[in-house]
């Protein structure tokens, strides 16, 4: 029964997400099955968790589960009918030569290994005490986080102010399995990895025009130790890999929109970017970076109107969650002060320490191998290309790192260096797949552009 429940939970998530993905891409007449399934998982987890949160304000228990299930099935039906309406056909891209076959087998093998490793590992410290705890308490309360949790000062260690994207995806599995099963719930993390690896391959191939480059980049993804090992890797059930996949997808579709001006690309961007603040608080910064870069690009291409519409869903989620916290959260968050100019001036002296800790982390081969060295070379190539899209891609890697470092100017920990040392490696994970996308696109620069170096 537990396994049936688990399958039903995953099926409903995929149905909701696939429905939205089919609606987005139906008008193109060609539906890439892998792309739709990967987006289906990302969007499905976002939609289900949002629905649980919103519907949980007026119902709970079986009624909540039934309403969300019906909504998932309805989205699936709407997507299917949209596909039928324009007679779009499904396409399963297959490797064209021996190299592509070998790389495909490698990517699929790596995904299988990460499923195995994830199930062999327990949830990590934060995975259990920051994220799963919310799913468990909500499960014990009929699918709704009790008000007393938000007002419990003694449980401030679990960060009640963190958004519910991943905890409520876990909750959905718990509701269907009928118990808070900590073994099977870990399955969602390799699913995010699988979606991320395949989307990385697709988006790199699409933007570079070379499928083998996309497959090569996707096959290199797990060779960065941080993605599979502590701290923050998928095996410990943290949200850093899932948010990195949403960031990759949103960035990739923004770049596709820049290249093709297709409605489906900007809608896919809007959907993926909207969930960034719903996965982790730092997602607001990632969303802001994408909004800034997208605005720059849309201004230069005279497409400001559609772009402004595309960032509205994300803004709605940010404001909605802030409002909710104001209504329910009794005690303040204490890791960072509210940023002010006087505080900035007062803590400006921290910059040297922050810079040296960042450099030390980027050069930490145990966490990153030579990944950041490759990114640095790629960023130089992208800037040297003098093409707006490539410069924006380089900025999409650099800006989050800069913002993430600067937030420690406002750290309230007794030792801001200890704060940064303990968390910056996880924050850097957020831009890691985007870094691979940058490497992939730098690899495929035409020769006539390289001569400017």
């Amino acid at each position, binding site marked *: 029964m537990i396994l049936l429940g688990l399958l039903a939970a995953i099926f409903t998530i995929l149905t909701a997400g696939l429905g939205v993905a089919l609606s987005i891409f139906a008008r193109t007449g060609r539906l890439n099955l892998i792309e739709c399934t990967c987006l289906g998982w990302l969007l499905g987890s976002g939609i289900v968790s949002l629905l649980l949160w919103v519907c949980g304000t007026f119902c709970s228990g079986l009624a909540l589960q039934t309403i969300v299930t019906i909504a998932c099935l309805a989205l699936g039906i709407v997507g299917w009918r949209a596909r039928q309406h324009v007679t779009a056909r499904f396409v399963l891209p297959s490797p064209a030569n021996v190299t592509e076959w070998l790389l495909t087998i490698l990517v699929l093998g790596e995904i299988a290994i990460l499923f195995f490793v994830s199930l*062999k*590992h327990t949830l*990590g410290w934060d995975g*259990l005490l920051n994220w*799963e705890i919310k799913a468990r308490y909500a499960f014990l309360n009929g699918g709704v986080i*009790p008000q007393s949790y938000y007002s*419990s000062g003694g449980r401030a260690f*679990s960060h009640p102010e963190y958004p519910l994207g991943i905890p409520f995806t876990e909750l959905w599995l718990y509701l269907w399995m009928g118990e808070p099963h*900590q*073994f099977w719930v870990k399955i969602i993390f390799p699913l995010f990895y699988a979606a991320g690896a395949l989307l990385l391959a697709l988006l790199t191939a699409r933007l570079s025009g070379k499928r083998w480059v996309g497959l090569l980049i996707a096959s290199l993804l797990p060779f960065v130790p941080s993605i599979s090992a502590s701290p923050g890797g998928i095996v410990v059930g943290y949200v850093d890999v899932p948010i990195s996949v949403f960031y990759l997808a949103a960035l990739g579709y923004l770049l596709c929109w820049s290249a093709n001006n297709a409605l489906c690309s900007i809608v896919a961007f809007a959907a993926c970017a909207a969930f960034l603040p719903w996965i982790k608080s730092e997602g607001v910064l990632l969303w802001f970076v994408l909004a800034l870069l997208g605005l720059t690009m849309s201004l230069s291409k005279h497409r400001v109107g559609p772009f402004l519409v595309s960032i509205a869903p994300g803004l709605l989620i940010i404001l909605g969650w802030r409002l909710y916290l104001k209504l329910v959260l009794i005690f303040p968050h204490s890791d960072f002060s509210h940023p002010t100019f006087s505080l900035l001036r007062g803590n400006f002296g921290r910059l040297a320490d922050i810079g040296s800790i960042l450099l030390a982390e980027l050069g930490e081969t145990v966490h990153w191998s030579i990944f950041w060295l490759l990114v640095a070379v790629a960023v130089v190539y992208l800037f040297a290309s003098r093409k707006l899209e490539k410069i924006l891609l380089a900025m999409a890697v650099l800006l989050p790192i800069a913002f993430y470092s600067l937030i420690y100017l406002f750290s309230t920990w007794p030792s801001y260096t200890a704060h940064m040392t303990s968390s910056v490696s996880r924050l850097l994970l957020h831009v890691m797949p985007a870094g691979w996308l940058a490497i992939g696109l730098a690899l495929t620069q035409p020769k006539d552009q390289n001569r400017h170096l």
Partner: protein
Amino acid sequence: MENRIGPVEVNRSIDVYVRALIGIERGSEKLPDTFRRLPKAGPLIIFVRNENSQSEFLGMMIGYLSWPREVQLVTVATPTVEKELAEVNRDSVAGLVFCSVNPPAWLEKRVRLGSGIVLVPLAETAP
């Protein structure tokens, strides 16, 4: 924390951590059972050692497992807690939990929950 695949248990992560931290099996069942026997009213005060990650993690794990009871985590800088205990109004508290912290010698009715963890109920426990 590494383990082999399986057994496929509901509270797999909690049990592995509790076993590693305080050496008891099926901690996800035993610890909440113990806390349920405390008086219904009143919070649980959990003492943890400052800059001792094992003690802090254990304290948070106790906070996690004692839901829905209100908890209060008190971080102490010294191995004894005389000063911090003096500030606790023990009439309104269900129990005290000491995680890698030594309870004062005069505190009676100690219950050793596992290695390095002691519970002191502060009122009559339920049967």
